[in-house]
């Protein structure tokens, strides 16, 4: 099975990002998660995937 590529979110440091429903495209971003969601819904993406950009940029030991 092919791994699923996650977009590079390094330019959205410390922001919440609303990704398209297939997870491939950044629809909106904002430091406030509610504002990021509202911006995505404003352009017609009702149920974006809400991601903190820092989750997908650095290394983790959890």
């Amino acid at each position, binding site marked *: 099975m092919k791994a699923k590529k996650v977009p590079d979110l390094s330019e959205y440091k410390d922001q919440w990002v609303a990704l398209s429903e297939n*997870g491939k495209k950044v629809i909106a971003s904002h430091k406030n998660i509610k504002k990021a969601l509202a911006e995505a819904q404003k352009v017609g993406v009702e149920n974006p995937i809400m991601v903190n950009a820092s*989750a997908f940029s650095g290394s983790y030991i959890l």
Partner: protein
Amino acid sequence: MRFPYSEIPVDRYCTGRPTEVAYRPVLNVILKYKNKTRTTPALVDSGADKCIFPTPVGELIGLDVHSVEPEYSGGIDAIKVPVYCHDITIVIRNNPINVRCGFIDKLPIGLLGQEGFFDQYKITFFYKEKYFDITPNRKA
């Protein structure tokens, strides 16, 4: 249920740009509380005692996250942080599970941990083939 690993660009040396990729067992889940739902990624994390999500995501589904007394939990750096626990539903590919879930203010990504996830599913990782399988435990 079979899921692909996520291929994530990582900035391992803090250069401001990703320098390599990491493969992580991440899946998109739906968090549900009353009639509100939101989709967010979660890392399958056998090292987490319970399922934990970022506080802002909990607030999106209508939880008053800080309205309960917190528990305290630590990570690799041993610093204890408050964890606010609430009963919610996590939906994984149309399969709902009711979970006592923790919320942490500065957590960057959801964690599917032992209590609430590993106790309900058998999880098998196939790193080389870049997928993982999640199978519901048979009821006794």
